[in-house]
Each structure stands twice: as C-alpha cells, then as structure tokens.
C-alpha cells in the first residue's frame, strides 16, 4: 500500500474541502496532525506486511510504479516529523482561522508532492512532483502577502523555474538517448554507454537544476531571501524538508542508484560542497536577522551533504544521509525557535532581541541544543554525522576538503555562540525611552497567546537531537548502515 502515502493526504485534502463548516477549523487540524503522525509511525516501524499488501481489486488504481527502500523510509519519517512540527507551529503563529485552513491545505499539497518525490521511479514523474512541492511552497511563502514575503516568493519562483527548465532539457536528452525515462532504463543506458555526449550533458543539466533547488553556492541566491521572508511556520517546512527533499534528496537518490558518479562529477560536487560550507558560514557570521542567519547556516550544512556525496564511497553516502536526517531535525528546531521569538516579540532582529533567556527558557535551552548539534559538538547528533563524513573524506584521501569541513565547523560554532550569547544569555539592557519596539520587547511576553504547540514541538525535536546523539550507534546500525546496499 505504498501509494497510500500519496493518496491518504489527497483524500484528506478532498474531505476537508467539502463545503461543511465543522470540517474547516479544529477538525482539519486534528485530521492533518493524525495523518502526519501515522506517517511518522509507519516510516519508523515500517511493518513490511503493510508495504506489500495489495487487494487485487485495488491494484488497478493504486498500483503505481512506486518503490520503497530504506532511504525512502528515512525521508518519509523526516517529512512526517517536520510537517507535523510545522503544523503545530502554524497553529500558534498564524492569525485567523482562514489562514490556518489555507495553510493546512497547502501543507497537504506539499506533503503529497514530497511523499511522491520520495517514492517515484521515473525521472519525469520526479519532475512533476518537485513542481507540485515547489508550487505549494511558493504560495505558502506568500501566504501572508507581506511585502517581503512576496519578494521572497518571486525570487524563489524565478530561480525554481529556471531550475525546472534545466531539468526539462535534461529529460529531453535522456529520452533521446535512452528511449525511456524510468530510473531503470536510464541506469541501464548509463552503465552500458558511458561515454555518450548527450548522456553526460543530460546528467550535467539535471545536476544544475538540482543544485539550484537545493541552494548550493553559487546557486543559492534565492534561499536566504525566501527563508527569511516566509512566515515562520513556512520557514520551518522549507528549511526542514521542501528544499531538502526537492533538491538534496534527489541528488542522493539519483547519484546513488541511477546516474553514475564520474570523477569529473565528483570534483564538481566536492568543490560546490566545500565552497557552500565556507561561503555560507562566513556570510552567516555577521547577519543581523535570526532567520537569515539560519538560512545561511542551512546552506552551509547542505554543503556538508553535497561534499559527502561527492566523496563517492558507501560510507560517505551513509554519512550524507545521516547528516541529512540530523540537519532536518536540528534546523527545524532552530526555525521553530525563531518562530517562537518572532511571535512573542514581533521581530527576529538580533539587535533588538536581548537577554531573553529568562523570559522563554524552553526556547533558549532547545536552541542551545540545536546550535551545538549544528556545530558538531560531541554528544549531540550533528557530531556523529560530521564525523562520518570527515572520516570518509580522509579515507578517500581528500585531506583538503576534510580540513575545510573541520574549519567551517569552528565558524559555525562562532556565529551560533555569539548569537546565543546575544539573544539569550545577555542581561537585557534597560529599555531605551524612545524606541517603540525595544520597549515592547523589554516589556516582555505576548501575554494573549499561549505557545503550547511551539513548546511541544521544540521539546520533541530537542529530545530527538539528544537521543539521536546518545543512541547514534543504534540509529546508525538499524537505519543508516543498511543504506550502503543502495549505493550502486
């Protein structure tokens, strides 16, 4: 019943849009949340019976060419978690029932797109569902229709459209040379006719499209703008899954089991990864906006994944997926923290947020956990995945890249610690007499709201980060090391 991952959100989408009033508010939220929870549980415990069971009468309709493997399960899990967190955040941050309802609808569309992206076995279908996801996220960014949000959405739309032109061209060349565009056919042709010019061109063009989608330097221009302008709950979704699934995951999938990773491509990926890591980390160093800093940090962390992919060994691939997983968890957590601050104090400008450690203890502690994990401090999950990546690079003899990865983690630590100190651990300055926003901040919490959903999400993700760090051996053995079999 693999196709249920696509159909269940689809049916839910249809159901909640019936013209019945009681379905719109709380009910839609509960249904969506339980759907996401079900996805998380299914992906985590993956009962194999479930995947293979097809009643014969349904095979005609549900028998899509979909495939599930360990990589897909991990992705489904990540998608479920992040979407759930985003939904919880949205309940606390979005204003108005109508907007919340729109958010749920678009979240479900994005969910269908991402789940299908993870499961398809055909390059054009892949493109279609990338577009579905992207479309939902354009609208989500522009959901509140603020000035900046529209700007971010427009930039994302333009770059994303250019990426899709690249991918379409690539699809055309693949069709031309392979005669078919399923993964199996393309893989077959690529292994049998390795030297063909158009095949190489097709792979190169698709790679360009995916690099734009995943926001690797120098294709990253849209990313900080879109992330920082989107409503907080949408940034959570974007940073955690949308761009990762529609860019990075597909890179992982295609280069692990469809395309062949030639030495030239390896060099391209390694170089792109390394400059992403360094450039984005440097750019994050002096940011004044919390969300923008997180966006740059996100680029930098994606650089690690690309770097590992470029290394081209099974171990590095495992490291890449592991880092993908960890990054999705802790970056989502950080964006939830940002959402919490934005909602409470009305701004994410670091210069205006000061000494908030006592006013919002949960946010301050969980953000510290996430930041340390991002910087790769030992007992937390981020450390282990970076360790595996660096180890893989060393064993392949890529010492310069390994060194770059290590040094960049120091920069990561530097900007996050300075941020943490400024926002949370500083004693707040006495309120300036004139500045309106500043006094509002020092006056404290937004008392009319409760933030149970956000706090819930923060604690959930922080527990994941810590547990993932302490139980990394278990996770590595049961989830990630079997991925070596996928690599070619």
């Amino acid at each position, binding site marked *: 019943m693999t196709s249920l991952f696509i159909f269940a959100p689809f049916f839910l989408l249809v159901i909640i849009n019936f013209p019945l009033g009681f379905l719109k508010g709380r009910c839609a939220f509960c249904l969506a949340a339980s759907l996401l929870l079900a996805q998380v549980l299914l992906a985590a415990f993956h009962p194999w019976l479930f995947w293979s069971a097809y009643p014969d009468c349904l095979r005609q309709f549900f028998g899509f060419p979909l495939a599930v493997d360990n990589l897909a399960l991990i992705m489904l899990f990540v998608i479920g978690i992040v979407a759930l967190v985003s939904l919880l955040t949205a309940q606390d941050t979005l204003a108005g029932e109508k907007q919340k309802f729109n958010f749920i609808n678009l979240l479900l569309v994005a969910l269908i797109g991402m789940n299908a992206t993870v499961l398809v076995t055909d390059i*054009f279908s892949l493109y*279609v569902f990338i*577009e579905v996801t992207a*479309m939902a996220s*354009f*609208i989500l960014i*522009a959901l509140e*229709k603020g*000035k*900046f949000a*529209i*700007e*971010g*959405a*427009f*930039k994302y*739309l*333009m770059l994303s*459209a*250019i990426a899709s*032109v690249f991918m*379409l*061209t690539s*699809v*055309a*060349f693949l*069709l*031309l040379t392979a*005669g*078919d*565009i399923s993964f199996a056919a393309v893989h077959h042709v690529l292994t049998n006719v390795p030297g063909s010019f158009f095949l190489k061109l097709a792979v190169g063009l698709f790679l360009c499209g995916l690099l734009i989608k995943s926001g690797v330097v120098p294709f990253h221009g849209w990313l*900080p*703008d879109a992330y*920082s*302008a989107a409503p907080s709950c949408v940034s959570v979704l974007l940073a955690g899954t949308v761009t990762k699934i529609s860019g990075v995951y597909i890179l992982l999938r295609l280069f692990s089991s469809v395309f062949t990773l030639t030495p030239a491509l390896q060099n391209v990926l390694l170089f792109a990864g390394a400059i992403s890591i360094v450039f984005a980390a440097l750019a994050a160093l002096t*940011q*004044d906006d919390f969300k*923008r800093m997180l966006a740059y940090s996100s680029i930098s962390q994606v650089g690690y994944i690309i770097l590992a992919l470029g290394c081209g060994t099974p171990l590095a691939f495992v490291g890449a997926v592991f880092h993908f997983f960890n990054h999705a968890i802790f970056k989502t957590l950080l964006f939830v923290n940002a959402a919490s601050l934005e909602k409470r104090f009305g701004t994410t400008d670091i210069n205006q947020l000061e000494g908030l450690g006592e006013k919002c203890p949960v946010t301050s502690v969980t953000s510290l956990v996430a930041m340390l994990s991002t910087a790769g401090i030992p007992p937390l999950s981020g450390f282990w995945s970076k360790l595996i990546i660096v180890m893989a690079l060393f064993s392949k003899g890529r010492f310069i890249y390994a060194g770059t990865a290590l040094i960049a983690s120091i920069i990561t630590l530097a900007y996050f610690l300075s941020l943490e100190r400024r926002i949370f651990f500083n004693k707040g300055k006495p309120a300036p007499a004139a500045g309106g926003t500043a006094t509002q901040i020092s006056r404290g919490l937004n008392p009319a709201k409760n933030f149970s959903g956000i706090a819930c999400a923060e604690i959930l993700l922080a527990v994941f980060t810590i547990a993932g760090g302490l139980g990394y051996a278990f996770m590595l053995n049961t989830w990630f090391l079997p991925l070596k079999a996928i690599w070619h």
Partner: protein
Amino acid sequence: MSPDLAGLFSYFMIFIILLFICGAYCIAATFNMVRAMIGLELLIKAATLLIILAGYLCGRSALAQAIVITLIVIEIVVMVVAGGIILWAFRHNESIDPRKLSNLKG
C-alpha cells in the same frame, strides 16, 4: 542515426538553442516582471520542442506527448501563481519593476 534524421536534429537543435538565448535575454534584460514571465515561457517552449523532437527521433512520440501534456498543465499553474505574486508586488510597490524587489539582501 540515419543522415536525414541527423540533419533534422541539427537544424532543430540550432533553433532550439536560439530560442533559449531569446528567453534568457528577455529574463536578463527586462525591467518588468510580466516580461520576465514571458521570457520564462519562451524557455519552457524551447524545452517543450526539445522533448517532442526527442520523442520523434527515438520513435516514442506517444511518450513525449504524454510528458508535454503534463508539462503544459504545470506551466499554466506556474503562470497563475506567478500572476498572483506579481499582483501583490504591484500592490506593495505600485510598480512591477523587479528592481523594486531588493529589500531582502545581505
């Protein structure tokens, strides 16, 4: 590949590349968001033609058509959403000049 097919492919390829240049130039040089979208349309047109050409050459016209039909549907939706975004950009800035959209930087 037979010579006449190769000839067909090469002159179609030339025009497709020229179409790409046309669209890219439009996106790069315009000061109007609607025109940027038109440039995008031209790019997609070129890609469409390329897919149909590929299907024709390798004898899978049916598959290519199926792909192109889906592609066209996606194209419309992209344009609708882009239209909505341009509309709001106009409401905020009283202009559809993309140069006005440079508040997010750094």
